[in-house]
């Protein structure tokens, strides 16, 4: 991702270069300048998006929460296991396990949480 960001910076810097002296300006130059300005703005927006997407996830927090969610699911299912005749507890156990799976699936690839 870094080369892409560097390239975008360089392109944006070129596009944002200062105006030429008024004597040299023609209507063609002005049209080119406008187009370059628009391109620079567009690249700036792209750059902001890329920077936002590159913010690293807080892996210890993410992994801690996933671990907590799955531990709670185990506790619910342990209770359900002691009361097999209770459909409400069975449903809660299933819902808890689903939450645990869903949470694990949401862990970003950058985080390698240890599954217990």
């Amino acid at each position: 991702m870094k080369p892409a960001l560097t390239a975008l910076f360089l392109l944006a810097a070129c596009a944002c270069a200062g105006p030429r002296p008024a004597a040299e300006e023609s209507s063609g130059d002005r049209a080119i300048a406008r187009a370059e300005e628009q391109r620079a703005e567009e690249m700036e927006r792209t750059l902001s998006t890329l920077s936002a997407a590159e913010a690293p996830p807080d892996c210890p927090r993410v992994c801690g929460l996933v671990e907590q969610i799955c531990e709670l699911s185990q506790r619910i299912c342990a209770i359900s296991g002691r009361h097999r005749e209770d459909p409400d507890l069975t449903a809660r156990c299933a819902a808890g396990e689903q939450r645990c799976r869903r949470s694990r699936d949401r862990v970003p690839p950058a985080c390698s949480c240890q599954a217990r």
Partner: protein
Amino acid sequence: MRTALILVFVGASLGCGSGATRWIGEAWRAHAEADILERSGDLERAGDLLQDLVSRPVPAGVAPQDARAVLQDTYARLANVALKRGKPADALHSADAGLQLGEAQDVFASSLRAFRGRALEALGRDAEAAREYEAAQAIAEALLSEALVDGGVR
């Protein structure tokens, strides 16, 4: 570690020299001392220290959300100490006291709900315990969503 971070954060936001800062300092020392007592196995004195902390009046200068954070964290720890001492009724009492201070979608509420569940389970109130665990899980899941957004992962 989490308690220390909370206390440092709250203390920093209060400035120096006020009764509020003194309260935060005392809370920090009580938790640090409770750490040592817990490690040495003296759970009773650790619990007494924490109980003393939550029994003191909160100085006027402490923002309500900061007071809630410090007290709920302490009540959760009290519940944990009580569970370790085999006193689930005391643990339930501490968790309830913490939750009575107000509930938000935060780590304090999730922690108190989980300890409440453990206390209820130890008291044989399984169905109620499962509901508490589920409530704690729902908060943790919401916190996970926040963590993924805050961390830039969408």
